[in-house]
């Protein structure tokens, strides 16, 4: 990949689902695209279910990625088993697509613990809340892999707002200087809570920032899963082969509010939302796959049933909140709890025992 100022988005499907020829990026074979369509349908169902669970009071909050499913799925499925994914709080669908049990993905929003899946087993870092901080960890994991002689790639996700953070700059610069096998996917969904992109950055594009670090920066239609899969697949392959890091900007849109606590009517118009809904990433690839004969009514019915089963499993899994033992508060702070933490644990135990005795 070359180091150019990226201002034109790579697009392999137009908004109507018609294929666009681009010799630089051959599309994936149809069965692979069907797999991505499936993951997007399941991802949206998971996203909707999580939102419903917030409204029912079962989850404290949920940052939706509705409208960004192409990014979520293409990122997760671009990775090989040994690769690492570094997600943010908005990337639950990507984490689930990577194979983490959706109940484990969402349990932190039920308040069980800060992160509830095993990062080592899945090669998925805990979802990062402080913006852009996880990009540096991705560079570290990738650089360590390279020193060990492994071809592991770390793919890190962030949003447009995070590109203003110092850690975004430091991560890209470190990755470039170390030639670390890292792919950074910026999901430019146009808003950092309420603040529009124009208040973050006036560069020609976020992808164009790659020039400043001496790395390829590729702008992609973020609602075109065919283009995203081709670009990310190539970025991962190049990084794995020793080509160094790649910056990818996905031009997409956060259709829902930042979280359920947000009121988007204060900072954007419904007309704008409707415009982006018309560019829906799922219906676009669906149109294409049906036209290609890769998707029929039977397959769609089966997929719809699978999505409902997933939602039911998530509802069932989150319906009960298993007790979290208060002892655990002291258990993981250090590998071996300090004498002071053990004393504090005993204090809490005694309080709880006294509460129990009072009842």
């Amino acid at each position, binding site marked *: 990949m070359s180091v150019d100022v990226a201002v034109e988005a790579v697009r392999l499907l137009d908004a109507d689902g018609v294929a666009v020829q681009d010799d630089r990026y051959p599309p994936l074979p149809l069965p692979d695209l069907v797999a991505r369509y499936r993951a997007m349908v399941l991802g949206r169902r998971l996203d909707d279910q999580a939102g419903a669970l917030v409204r029912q009071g079962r989850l404290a909050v949920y940052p939706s990625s509705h409208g960004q499913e192409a990014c979520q799925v293409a990122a997760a499925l671009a990775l090989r088993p040994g690769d690492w994914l570094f997600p943010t709080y908005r990337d639950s669908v990507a984490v689930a697509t990577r194979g983490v049990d959706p109940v484990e993905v969402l349990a932190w929003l039920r308040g069980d613990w800060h992160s509830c899946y095993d990062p080592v087993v899945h090669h998925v870092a805990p979802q990062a809340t*402080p913006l852009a901080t996880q990009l*540096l960890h991705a*560079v570290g994991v990738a*650089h*360590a892999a390279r020193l060990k002689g492994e071809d592991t790639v770390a793919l890190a996700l962030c949003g447009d707002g995070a590109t203003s953070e110092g850690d975004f700059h*430091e991560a890209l610069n470190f990755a470039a200087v170390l030639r670390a096998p890292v792919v950074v996917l910026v999901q430019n969904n146009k808003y950092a809570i309420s603040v529009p992109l124009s208040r973050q950055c006036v560069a020609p594009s976020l992808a164009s920032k790659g020039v400043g670090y001496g790395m390829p920066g590729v702008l992609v239609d973020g609602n075109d899963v065919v283009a995203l899969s081709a670009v990310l697949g190539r970025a991962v392959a190049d990084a794995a082969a020793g080509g160094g890091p790649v910056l990818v900007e996905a031009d997409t849109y956060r259709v829902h509010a930042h979280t359920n606590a947000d009121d988007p009517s204060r900072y954007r118009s419904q007309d704008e939302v409707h415009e982006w809904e018309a560019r829906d990433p799922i219906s676009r690839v669906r149109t294409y796959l049906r036209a290609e004969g890769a998707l029929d009514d039977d397959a769609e019915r089966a997929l719809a049933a699978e999505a409902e089963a997933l939602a039911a499993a998530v509802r069932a899994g989150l319906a009960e909140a298993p007790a979290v033992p208060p002892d655990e508060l002291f258990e*993981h702070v*250090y590998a071996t709890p300090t004498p002071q933490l053990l004393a504090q644990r005993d204090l809490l135990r005694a309080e709880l025992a006294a509460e129990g005795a009072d009842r």
Partner: protein
Amino acid sequence: MKTTMAGALNAALRDEMEADPTVLVLGEDVGPLGGVFRVTDGLTARFGEDRCFDTPLAESGIMGLAIGMAMNGMRPVVEMQFDAFAYAAFEQVVSHLAKMGNRTRGRVRLPVVVRVPYGGGIGGVEHHCDSSEAYYAHTPGLTVVAPATNEDAYGLLRQAIRYPDPVVFLEPKRQYFTKEEVDVAAEVPPIGRAVVRREGTDVTLIAYGPAVQVALAAAEQGAAEGRSIGVVDLRSIVPFDDATVCAAVRATGRAVVVAEASGFASVASEVAARVTEQCFHHLAAPVRRVTGFDIPYPPPRLERHHLPSVDRVLDTVDELQWGLS
């Protein structure tokens, strides 16, 4: 061997890198230059650029990189060039380095050592002399170690590199070039254990890092003036060794905490509070603190007024209600 503290630290890094191929050193100027204090001297030549390397000049980046490398099986030793330069890495230290083990329920431990040359007394310009230990000690998940002798510098750094959790390793930079005898074969007490550096029956001075030498000098001078002054060296601030500290204080009934950092909301304050809570009925006088003033670190020509001195320590000892006991 007789060596400087910088030399002792260098030997500890070399010996751990020799023993464990996952131990790496990274930071600013740690490569061919050997660090601005020469603590990493010769490591790149000996172990290669993959094992000891210069990074771009960005402390948050260095810290975040080390966290990621630790997530993938390495034991990075980070050098923060000066105490105050490490503030740029604060978010990575507090939100990630300190918390990763806890937030992942023990699944991801980060064996990272953050070496911080700290404290003043070298006539340094601003931003080069801070005592930043309170920020780290206040952060659950961090282990905070502050050696006061060259033998501890060697032994504790080796322990820190082998430690399962992140260790902030505070090096008293005014002692970097002080020579002392170091027995590299000596087993120093583990991280978390304080030691009595000098026995005394009248009063216990509690110190760590560069203040230990001040406390020992005060004890020596106090002995000439007829006072028997004991000195406890904390060695590690976290974990805190309540048992050793309180046993020493109970034996004398008087305690003075000596530390270079500003006193307000400080480690010295925590020590005074702990001693008061645990030794109250053994105390013949209030626990006192001799610390730096609550001011930004002074310019070089005024720093001697700020730093705890032997005289200030002994004046404070004199004020401990001797007539009443």
